[in-house]
């Protein structure tokens, strides 16, 4: 039996609006061990909100409710904001979609990485500097000393995302949430970034939540997949059995993808059934 790092039970994310309360996530439950868990779904299915809710990063007026979000047995919802700051970065970290926007444009890359490390480790600046160089080398950045002095706008997208990974892994967290980490990158560097992330996550025995809308990527890259639709989990399956998925939504998504080995003149169009969004959430617990 795999040890459970994260245990989420009945998670809701709500946004009060003038038209009433909008539920972005509606009662999602899952567990995460030292594995690569994929969350797939279309835009607005609540997958990103799920990731951010775990870190309690939903800003007011948004509300996060759950029976519990346990990190190794301790409920994150019971923590004060100050205690949460020790969780963020140090125990659970997150890589976002586009490094162009997720790095501070007016700070050097070195300062940003050093800052991430020193927030959780009381070490001297030069020790943090050396550690940062090591980390940059771990994400295959050559010329790391120059990169430390450079600003984000001087980096390419692929480099930027590897820098993000280095920055988010430098405090050695147990869980990494990767929110569409390759969607903003050129196809040619996507694989490289994924491989680096995969290697580091494996080496460190971390749990990875990989949020993506790319079914094939998730099938390739993850161990287990949650398929979300309208704020709920509609299906859970092993990644290598994704192509045998049963839920009509998953089937519809799969069938709407073009295939090299079975070309078709017309791709299928997803026919949505209102019943899908009313069906209760499937549990993603192991």
């Amino acid at each position, binding site marked *: 039996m795999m040890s459970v790092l994260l245990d989420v039970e009945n998670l809701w994310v709500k946004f009060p609006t003038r038209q009433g309360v909008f539920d972005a996530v509606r009662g999602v439950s899952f567990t995460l061990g030292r594995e690569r868990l994929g969350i797939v779904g279309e835009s607005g299915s609540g997958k990103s909100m799920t990731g*951010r809710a775990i*870190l309690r*990063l939903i800003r007011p007026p948004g509300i996060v409710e759950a029976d519990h979000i346990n990190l190794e047995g301790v409920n994150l919802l019971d923590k004060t*904001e100050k205690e949460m*700051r*020790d*969780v*963020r*970065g*140090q125990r659970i*970290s*997150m890589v*976002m*979609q*586009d490094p162009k*926007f*997720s*790095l*501070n*444009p*007016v*700070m*050097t890359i*070195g300062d940003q990485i050093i*800052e*991430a490390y020193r*927030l*959780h480790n009381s070490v001297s600046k*030069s020790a943090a*500097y*050396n550690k940062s*160089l090591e980390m940059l080398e771990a994400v295959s950045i050559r010329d790391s*000393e120059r990169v*430390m*002095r450079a*600003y984000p*706008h001087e980096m390419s997208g692929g480099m930027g995302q590897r820098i*993000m990974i280095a*920055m*988010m892994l430098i*405090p050695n967290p147990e869980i990494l949430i990767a929110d569409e980490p390759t969607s903003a990158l050129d196809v040619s560097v996507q694989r490289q970034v994924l491989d680096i992330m995969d290697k580091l996550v494996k080496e460190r025995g971390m749990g990875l939540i990989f949020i993506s809308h790319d079914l094939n990527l998730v099938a390739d890259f993850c161990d287990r997949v949650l398929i979300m639709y309208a704020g709920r989990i509609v299906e859970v399956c092993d990644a290598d059995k994704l192509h045998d998925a049963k839920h009509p939504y998953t089937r519809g998504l799969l069938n709407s993808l073009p295939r090299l080995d079975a070309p078709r003149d017309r791709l299928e169009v997803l026919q949505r059934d209102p019943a899908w969004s009313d069906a209760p959430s499937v549990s993603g617990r192991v």
Partner: protein
Amino acid sequence: MALTEDNNERRPTRAPLSDTLWPALKTAVRTLSSIAVTLLGLLFITFIIGRVMPIDPVLSIVGERASQSTYDAVYEQLGLDKPLIVQFLYYLWDVLHLDFGTSLLNARPVSEDIARVFPATLELATLGILFGVILGVPLGVLAAVRKGSWIDQVARVLALVGYSMPIFWLGLMGLLIFYGILGWVGGPGRVGIFYVDVVPSVTGMILIDAALDGNWDVFKDAFSHIILPASLLGYYSLAYISRMTRSFMLEQLSAEYITTARVKGMSEWDVIWKHAFKNIRVQLITVIALSYAGLLEGSVLTEIIFSWPGIGSYITTALLSADMNAVLGGTVVVGLVFILLNIFSDLLYKVFDPRAK
């Protein structure tokens, strides 16, 4: 031997000096030439204005009843018989020697007048902008961070009042309440009548002159006179600066790198000041520089209400008495202030935004 071993190879390395010196020199030359060109344009415009004004400069000197020969002599003395381009070159030459001609009102060189009135405005405007920045920027940041809260509402009302109340009304009410009724501050003018010309004029700014002289009685009196008009101008710029700060901050706070900073486990205070605020500095400099330039131009109404002998009231008085030398001299000085502040904020951009390099 062992001493020469390089065991610090992981220290950050700096680019060689020659690489940083050359571009700096180039920038300096480019900046200076752009100042020169802008200034030339400014002088050309003021010169043309001086010539197209329907005021006969000779007549305003010699008076209406002068004889034709006197008129002709002055006409020639002013160089008005020369072609326009030659006149312009004369004008350039004079201005470069800080000679703006003689004021028709008091027969003193305009440059002397400006040297007297500009420091008065400078003193008032600087205190005003300090007030506006020190209170306005934190207020704007707070309003953005607590968007929609009561603090935000109070800041909004405060700014709205600052924007929409006529400054002469606020000035008169201020004088009535704080000077007339409460007696907390000094009245109109820069110092009380007993303190006029007590301290030697070094900078022309009484607060600084009094401090240099060590005469704290004069300093106190001058301060009690300047505080009301300076707060008024400060309030006016606070209104603008705090609103702009708020909208700049709101834009930055919704940026993704702010989420990154929070994910790192940073405190909200550091997220706001170390990350978001760093990104609005450039925009903020523009706003502050423009407000400051506006105040340096001389807030005519404030200066008139408080009998403040600044450049705004000087130019206005000169204009109303058709004293063109004084008007043009003042205009050149105000224009120069705008140019210098613009250049200064451009230089600051390069310090604060790595992308501008």
